[in-house]
């Protein structure tokens, strides 16, 4: 079991990271997260419900002692907003990890890479462990590494689109370009997508909609768990090359 994912000396017990959005209720969230075997769980930062004090809290169902909470800056379209949310998230005192999102467009939710780079540099200097949600541009990934990111999180496809790994070639180049861990974030639609990401050599996969939006989220969470394990094992096992023509698997010798 010597294949642990390590980021800034933090050891992660699973390469499947999961989000907590879009579930039916907290109980379903809890069951899916558990079925996924995930170690990292992302959360969003939002105003607390002050009026209704009886309303339940996500962290009553997702124990911060059991899981590594990864706050995001979802919904932030400017550097200023992203910094504000990231700093608030850190000050909550549960985690120094931050999944940094600076969104450029409402329709695609693609990152505003200029703003992302700026915010990454600022937060990294403040001591945050910045995991930027980026695109599949290897040059961007390198810039983020240079700016102090602790990992890079290139999207496979738009958030919630379920289109899978749209540009595996670029993801492969990113893996060769940066020394940081590469975590595919966004776009995974089913188990094979997660396996493909891991077979490319990615260090982890973050999945939210692919699980929460499935007909049976708990079952899909389990499927994703196996897919990530299988993909990683396959990657480490070293696949056969792709050939145009056949090479027989059974011997000629001894034929009648």
């Amino acid at each position, binding site marked *: 079991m010597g294949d642990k994912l390590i980021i800034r000396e933090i050891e992660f017990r699973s390469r499947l990271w999961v989000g907590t959005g879009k579930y039916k209720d907290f109980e379903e969230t809890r069951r899916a997260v558990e079925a996924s075997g995930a170690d990292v769980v992302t959360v969003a*930062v939002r105003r607390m419900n002050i009026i209704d004090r009886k309303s339940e809290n996500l962290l009553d169902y997702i124990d911060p002692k059991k899981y590594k909470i990864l706050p995001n800056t979802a919904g932030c379209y400017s550097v200023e907003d992203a910094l504000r949310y990231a700093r608030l998230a850190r000050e909550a005192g549960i985690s120094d990890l931050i999944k940094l999102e600076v969104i450029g467009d409402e329709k695609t939710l693609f990152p505003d890479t200029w703003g992302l780079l700026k915010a990454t540099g600022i937060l990294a200097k403040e001591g945050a462990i910045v995991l930027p949600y980026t695109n599949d541009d290897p040059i961007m990934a390198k810039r983020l590494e240079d700016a102090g990111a602790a990992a890079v999180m290139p999207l496979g496809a738009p958030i919630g689109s379920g289109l899978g790994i749209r540009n595996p070639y670029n993801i492969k180049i990113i893996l060769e370009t940066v020394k940081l861990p590469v975590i595919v974030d966004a776009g995974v639609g089913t188990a094979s997508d997660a396996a493909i990401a891991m077979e490319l050599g990615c260090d982890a996969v973050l999945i939210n909609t692919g699980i929460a939006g499935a007909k049976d989220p708990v079952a899909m969470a389990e499927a994703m768990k196996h897919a990530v394990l299988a993909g990683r094992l396959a990657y480490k096992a070293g696949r056969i090359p792709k050939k145009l023509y056949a090479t027989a698997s059974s011997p000629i010798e001894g034929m009648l």
Partner: protein
Amino acid sequence: MRLTINSDFFETSGTRTLEELLNDLDIEPGRVAVEVNLSIVKKADYSAFMLNEGDKIEIVNFVGGG
């Protein structure tokens, strides 16, 4: 004193510090982060942080998200 908390008006009496306010609202400090007049208040300062009439306070916590 009148405060704005998460964009709603609140009337408080006898509350002087941020820690007292969180107590009054039955909010556990460990799961939230607080901004007063656009400045994040460090957790360690909650007990000493004095609130003033008209302060705009944001209290955030973690919710489901991707």
